[in-house]
């Protein structure tokens, strides 16, 4: 959680069904959103026309704040609801008015964007540096677990973490993702039960060698 709720106090809650693009790539930022409930995935479209999921926003997160505060103010990615989601929003002008003469709020915003940027960079580094499909999938599942809860060991995810989703997160084929999910299920690391439950502790100790199939 962060202390930017103050920016969205008394703002209307808007319900967004799953699968709706909230922000399009290449557009000027004209609204800044806060996730009240649900999840938003951030993705780019590859040259092959497939989605590459880069990040995920959860309840309490604010987006696309870093983009708005960067020099360009033009979005680099798509932002789409992964589940039924409720959002609040403010305009850039409203943010400017709240920030004027308020260095303390400015520092809160810098702290929050820096916290998100670190997670984003870690995620990108994992996508780029891991060559092994299993290492990629492990890193992606860790990312999901840590985004959902950094404290708990058993992570309950209430959206479908299927082969297609994992393939989009990791840049592996759906076939490879399916094989790895089957293996993780057989090891008891992933359980399908009203969504997906991931045993984060077991995932951490799961061997990364692809020879173990």
């Amino acid at each position, binding site marked *: 959680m962060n202390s930017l709720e103050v920016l969205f106090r008394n703002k209307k809650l808007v319900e967004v069904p799953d699968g709706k693009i909230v922000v399009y790539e290449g557009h000027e930022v004209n609204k800044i959103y806060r996730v009240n409930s649900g999840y938003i995935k951030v993705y780019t479209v590859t040259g092959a026309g497939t989605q590459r999921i880069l990040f995920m926003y959860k309840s309490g997160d604010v987006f696309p704040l870093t983009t708005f*505060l*960067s020099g360009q103010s033009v979005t680099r990615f798509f932002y789409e609801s992964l589940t039924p989601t409720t959002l609040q929003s403010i305009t850039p002008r409203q943010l400017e008015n709240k*920030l*004027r*003469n308020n260095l303390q709020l400015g520092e809160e*915003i*810098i702290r929050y*964007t820096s916290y998100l*940027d670190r997670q984003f960079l870690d995620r990108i580094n994992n996508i780029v540096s891991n060559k092994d499909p299993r290492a990629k999938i492990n890193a992606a599942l860790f990312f999901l677990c840590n985004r959902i809860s950094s404290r708990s060991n058993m992570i309950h995810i209430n959206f479908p973490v299927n082969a297609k989703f994992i393939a989009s997160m990791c840049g592996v084929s759906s076939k490879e993702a399916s094989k790895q999910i089957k293996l993780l299920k057989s090891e008891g690391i992933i359980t399908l039960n009203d969504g997906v439950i991931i045993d984060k502790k077991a995932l951490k100790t799961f061997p990364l060698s692809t020879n173990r199939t």
Partner: protein
Amino acid sequence: MKIFINPSGFIEVHFFGEQDPATITRGIKTIESYAKKLQSQNKPILILEDVSKINYIDFLSPKMAGPRKEITQAFAEIKFDRFAMCAPLYLQVILTTIALVVGKRNQIKAFDSRIDAINWLLSK
């Protein structure tokens, strides 16, 4: 730090390597004195600051509390027409946030590229 008047008439400042509160304070004072010089000559005060080659700065660390206030105050007080900064993303976010705090969003802008920065600085 290097500072000079670019042949196009703007103040050009480059910071390199490790920066600490003392170097930041010194930098602000030098920029202020250059700005005053241009002001006394009735010339527009345009500033290009290149911080793309400095080491990472933990802007929110306690030791940076003083520089944070000084930078914000300097942006509020220096009577520049435009201030462009070439910087990595995290410093762009900091600069834009400070620009909003001091109410100078249209006069302060961050860029990835020097050419884009100069283009904006010199545009009508």
